[in-house]
């Protein structure tokens, strides 16, 4: 019997059919993937499975029990655990505590036992802590158990979220884009991990993912949805060659890359890199900055520069300090030492909003959109410092031209947008400022393959046509190096390598560490 069976599941938001008569069967012990364009309804489907939304129609049956109408905490008791697309850790709890909370359904202590500190209680706590330590070791979190979850770099947070969901000893694990924000090396490890979970622990996995290497590599079956409807279903090789899927989701580039493994690593560099316009004029220069998070020394004497009209990329492992560098430039993290100059003007000590006014736009990692404001309002906030209304209008038109989807969603609350839509909104908001330099932190995260190509084309266009300099942080280092003029490689808060992007891409160490071989 199938572990999970969904029949005709439908979920509407007002007039929008987010999930439309979806059927899905998950056999015990399988790895099943759901893919589809941004806003196709994948996360919404997960939310109906886990009880966060009640489906408007349809049945969901798990091991003979109907899940429709149950609360999320009741559904969790059926040994169904999940992770979230936008990482939802308990930020102010330690790593260990996060995992212990994940064990909630597995602990039986009740109020009297807790208050009396009975032997039963102590024993259970001891075992729970030991198990948490084991899980931390399993997920490579040993040593950070007492850190607050919020202090971890993004990729590690993802691992913690998976550890937390494993703490519930699930039979069925729902993973919503678990490798977003991981570099190729890490997603490779994640793939191996998922297989291990299935093979060694017998956990059935339902996976949403935009990284085709992962999806095609480990899925037994793939379901493709578009506009809430299933458009294809089958084994990976069937899906890869399905024209409808290629058209709606993969885009020709990614599809070609998948069918012809060779070409992926050596995709022709699409733009001839004409030397940047007035190369030589330094736009942004950072001299020897040191930044801290609390007592953690995150940046240790970083120096770099971006010339007018350049695309510069920062690459490095998770926690190397890439995001911190961007955050320090935009004033969100204060440099304890060193100088940041924008066209010669010292902006090191300026408050963040003045740094924005000076011409630095920042699209932060994890989007940072305002969940309770509508799309229109989010964009409006982005335009807050521009007094020139017609200019704002033109800018708006421009971003709608880039992301037509946003125009359809103008009055939807930011927090209810799909992950990819939020990403588009974040980028759009950064563009409205009409910055001289745009700091982009993982712009392709959570985007469907077609859109990843699109985003990079947009970056190129912004750079070429509008002359906006770009400082880019991207897990997809391969793409980033293709489009960038120059690159810096960061490792544990220091710059270890710098130079022409194409040369860096050829560097054997960089290749093995960040480009996945």
């Amino acid at each position, binding site marked *: 019997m199938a572990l999970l069976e969904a029949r005709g599941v439908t979920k509407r938001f007002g007039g929008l059919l987010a999930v439309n008569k979806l059927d899905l069967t998950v056999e015990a012990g399988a790895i099943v993937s759901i893919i589809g364009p941004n806003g196709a309804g994948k996360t919404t489907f997960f939310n109906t499975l*886990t009880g*966060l939304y009640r489906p408007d129609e349809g049945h969901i049956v798990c091991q003979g029990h109907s899940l429709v109408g149950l*609360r999320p*905490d009741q559904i*969790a008791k059926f040994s169904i*655990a*999940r992770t*979230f697309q936008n990482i*939802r*850790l*308990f*930020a102010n*709890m*330690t*790593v*260990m*505590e996060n995992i*212990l*909370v994940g064990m*909630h*359904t597995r*602990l039986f*202590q009740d*109020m009297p036992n*807790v*208050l009396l*500190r009975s032997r039963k209680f102590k024993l259970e706590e001891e075992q729970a*802590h*030991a198990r948490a*330590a*084991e899980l*931390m*070791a*399993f997920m*490579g*979190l*040993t*040593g*950070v*158990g*007492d850190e607050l979850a919020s*202090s*971890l*770099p993004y*990729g*590690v947070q993802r*691992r913690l979220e998976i550890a*937390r969901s494993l703490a*519930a000893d699930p039979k069925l694990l729902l993973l919503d884009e678990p490798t977003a924000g991981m570099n190729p090396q890490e997603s490779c*490890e994640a793939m191996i991990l998922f297989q291990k979970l299935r093979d060694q622990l017998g956990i059935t996995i339902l996976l949403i993912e935009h990284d085709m290497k992962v999806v095609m590599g480990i899925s037994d079956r793939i379901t493709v949805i578009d506009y809430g409807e299933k458009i294809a279903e089958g084994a990976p090789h069937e899906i890869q060659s399905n024209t409808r899927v290629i058209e709606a989701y993969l885009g020709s580039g990614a599809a070609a890359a998948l069918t012809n493994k060779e070409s992926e690593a050596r995709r022709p560099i699409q733009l001839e890199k004409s030397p940047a316009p007035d190369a030589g004029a330094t736009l942004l220069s950072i001299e020897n900055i040191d930044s*801290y998070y609390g*007592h*953690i*020394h995150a940046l*240790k004497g970083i120096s770099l520069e971006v010339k007018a009209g350049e695309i510069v990329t920062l690459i490095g*492992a*998770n*926690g*190397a300090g890439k995001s911190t560098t961007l955050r320090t430039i935009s004033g969100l993290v204060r440099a*304890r030492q060193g100088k940041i100059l924008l066209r010669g003007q010292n902006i090191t000590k300026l408050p963040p909003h003045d740094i924005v006014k000076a011409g630095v736009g920042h699209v932060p990692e994890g989007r940072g959109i305002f969940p309770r404001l509508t799309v229109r309002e989010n964009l409006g906030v982005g335009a807050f410092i521009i007094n020139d209304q017609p200019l704002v209008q033109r800018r708006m038109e421009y971003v709608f031209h880039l992301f037509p989807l946003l125009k359809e969603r103008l009055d939807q609350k930011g927090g209810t947008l799909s992950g990819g839509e939020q990403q588009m909104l974040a980028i759009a908001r950064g563009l409205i400022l009409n910055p001289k330099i745009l700091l982009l932190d993982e712009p392709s995260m959570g985007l469907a393959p077609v859109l990843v190509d699109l985003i990079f084309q947009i970056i190129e266009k912004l750079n070429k046509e509008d002359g906006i300099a770009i400082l880019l942080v991207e897990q997809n280092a391969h793409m980033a190096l293709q489009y960038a003029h120059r690159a810096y490689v960061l490792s544990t808060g220091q710059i270890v390598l710098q130079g022409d992007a194409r040369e860096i891409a050829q560097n054997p160490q960089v290749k093995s560490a960040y480009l996945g071989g």
Partner: protein
Amino acid sequence: MAAIKSGKASASSIVNNFLNQGKRPYFLASVYLALGTLLVYFNPLNMASFFFLLSSAFVIYKLQMHGGFKLAITAVALLIIVPIIGIRNIFYLEVIFQISVFAALALGLNVVVGFAGLLDLGYVAFYAVGAYLWAFFGSQQMFLLAEIPGTAPSGTPFFLPADMFYLFAFLGIVVAALTGILLGLPVLRLRGDYLAVVTLGFGEVIRVLANNLDKPLNITNGPQGITPIQRPTLPEGLLNSLRVLMDPLVGRDVSQGEFYNLFFYLLALLVIIFVIIVVRRLDDSKIGRALTAIREDETAAVSMGIPLTRMKLTAFAVGASFAGIMGVMFAANRTFVSPESFSFMQSIGVLTMVILGGIGSIPGVILGAAVVIILNLQVLQGLSLYLSQLRQSEAVIPIIDFAWKNLSTQLDPAKYQRMLFGIILILMMIYRPAGLIPAARRKRELSTRSKDKKKPITPSSTAAEADHGAA
């Protein structure tokens, strides 16, 4: 890993190392406490020496000493020193009693606001429930149901014997917890601001009920309040032997009333200890973790299988129960309750204590209670007194040539409680949002790992990288 501290932090760590070398902290703590005791003993009316003595609690808390010694020295301070100096100047005992009562309230509110993140602005209602519970059953009110307030015939007997107080202290816990659950059921679906508004309303409803439930049945005796309320009896034999002990230390005969003060102080202490134990055990359990998880992210918490409503109700009930028992005690201590004691300002006061001390932090919240009570009872009232003395004097403010006696009598610092709370809240939000003693998450990993040595640990290939990440 490069854990380089800032200059400021290292300066304070130098001081710390200096103070905590070898036997030094034991010596320091003892001398500090002894000095404070002597100061207060010989200047019972001097406020500064009283503060000095109170601050020794903080000193003892901060110094690094063996846990057993800390406990012992605290016990000496609380069980021997405070009673003696408290009876020499009964006002001090009153201050410390109030600190204990409000510390318990603040700890209860802390479970709701600090752990579970539910902003409750009507918390004092549960305190009122406890107080009126004993006020009604521990007075003659049961026989006055048909009377108009203020017309109690003389000679009405009490409804219950005085020693039922103890039973009602327990009932106070139960009834307040049930009230918490009843209030919580409809309300806890609301989030954030809405919850705050509804609980604020609830607090006012209870006060208004207390004000108006004198008709058709006279249950609360209206705005006049209920009095007298019985206190539990003190056994004569014990009193007499205590007298033999206390009289020479205090230097005069100790009256029955003073012994009652002492008695309530000890009772409050008992409750506080009980409350602290409960809160600590909760915090360090599945229940406490679930509450904190709810505070951090409801959606994630519920997806982990945490039943939101039940957990929130638990928080409400636990918080309410502390207020309930303290309410019963308050009624007996004062022998009088009236709606005035349960105004919105009281709720805000308790919230101020929590925020000032440190949301979620047990020692912080107790410190918060102490600071607010002292500011309120001593500093503001002391200022009022000082100003009124100045008014009566011939003194003149030099430069602007203003005679103190012309100062408006409206200017009475004792009335500026609200402004004080406001200023405290604003300053804390700006300069120390985590409070005077911020809550710290428990460090657990190392202790668990050392216990767990024998088990093979299989670090995944990314472990090293994770460590970099944290550095």
